[in-house]
């Protein structure tokens, strides 16, 4: 190093700095530089020792680094062999030559398709209200699908087809005619009501139109006397009317006819007459 300690003329322009003692104001501990050599050499030895000793406790197999290159080379060869396996795939001849053109053509088609769809229009504010509409629809669908809580017997739907076929195709074979359910028709109901009304009306009418003769014919007296011949009756009357002491009357309005007595009397008279 070339020192030119005398060449400090530049200090003449800086008087304040020139007045400062240019000597080194720093000091060091006593004997510091005497021991600095040894300290530096000791540190160098420590550094070399660190370099020579492997990291704490870590060791490697013997000849590891000697074999490392060969191992890496072998691994590289294996990787290359595996890569060649993928190289067995082939592409049509000229595939990559045409690939760029094909991709560009596809892009053009896609762009054209996009332009076509761009021609379609939707009502104003369609997409703004679309979300609300879909949500409403979903809500309605959910409400309708609440019947989903109903259940069917196990295997119901498995047998349903067969059951329906049995009830439809088999019954059709047996019943070739058309079945009309009368009880379910409205005309039958009206007809039945009309018949009932007619029957009741006829009954009432017939009961009202019966005459005294008919009533008598239907009476018990008439039925009892009708079995006796007229001659018997005449002879009976003559017998009893000729006798003046006999004050009995055939009919007394004030008395009820005693059917038992009358029958008994008639029977006696008949018996007498026949003797």
């Amino acid at each position: 190093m070339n020192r030119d300690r005398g060449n400090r003329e530049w200090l003449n322009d800086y008087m304040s700095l020139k007045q400062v003692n240019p000597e080194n104001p720093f000091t060091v501990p006593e004997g510091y530089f005497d021991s600095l050599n040894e300290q530096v050499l000791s540190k160098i030895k420590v550094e070399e020792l660190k370099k020579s000793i492997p990291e704490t406790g870590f060791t490697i197999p013997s000849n590891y680094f000697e074999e490392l290159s060969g191992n890496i080379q072998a691994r590289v060869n294996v990787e290359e062999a595996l890569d060649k396996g993928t190289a067995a795939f082939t592409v049509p001849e000229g595939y990559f030559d045409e690939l760029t053109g094909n991709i560009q053509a596809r892009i053009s088609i896609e762009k054209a398709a996009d332009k076509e769809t761009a021609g379609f229009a939707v009502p104003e504010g369609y997409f703004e209200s679309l979300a609300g509409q879909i949500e409403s629809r979903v809500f309605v669908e959910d409400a309708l699908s609440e019947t989903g809580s109903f259940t069917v017997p196990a295997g119901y739907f498995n047998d349903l087809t067969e059951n329906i076929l049995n009830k439809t195709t088999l019954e059709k074979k047996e019943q070739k005619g058309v079945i009309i359910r009368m009880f379910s028709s409205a005309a039958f109901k009206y007809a039945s009501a009309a018949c009932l009304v007619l029957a009741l009306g006829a009954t009432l009418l017939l009961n009202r139109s019966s005459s005294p003769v008919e009533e008598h014919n239907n009476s018990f007296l008439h039925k009892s006397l009708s079995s006796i011949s007229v001659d018997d009756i005449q002879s009976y009357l003559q017998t009893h009317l000729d006798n003046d002491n006999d004050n009995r009357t055939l009919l007394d309005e004030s008395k009820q006819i005693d059917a038992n007595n009358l029958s008994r009397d008639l029977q006696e008279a008949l018996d007498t007459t026949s003797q």
Partner: protein
Amino acid sequence: MAAQVEDAEILRKFQDEKTRNEAFNLLLKKYQQKLYWHIRRMVIDHDDADDIVQDTFVKIWKNLPGFRSDAQLYTWMYRIATNECITFLNKKKQRNNIPLDDVAYELADTLADSTYFNGDKAQLKLQQAILTLPEKQRLVFNMKYYDDMKYEEMSDVLGTSVGALKASFHLAVKKIESFLLSKD
């Protein structure tokens, strides 16, 4: 006298395995104080300077076999020492998470409390003024003011052009002069 041994002789001995340690001893004796003071003026604290000077010589030992003889040995070692100083100051900034200006204040405090500073009031003020400079200007001023190093040598050490170094030096001197005039 070891200081008189030429750098070329030291390098020649270092190349020989048998005289390598002897050569390094000569190197240490010749340059240890110069490098120490260069470092000390940058980091102020003696213990920090001690650590850095030892690390510097360890690096010199490791890299000396690859040293190209076309460069000056002195400036090459100065460059290593300077880089170690800058690395140390950067680590100090990161470790304390403080900006560069605060590092200068911290160094000024260290200087005021240092046991190994026996300068007078003017010298203390000068050191405080130097600590207000950016790192590059501090380096240039110290190498010129204390070591009388030529700009060409400083250019080798700092990797900066001579013109830029001259400009930096004059800026630094102006700031220091201003500092010395403005404060008691």
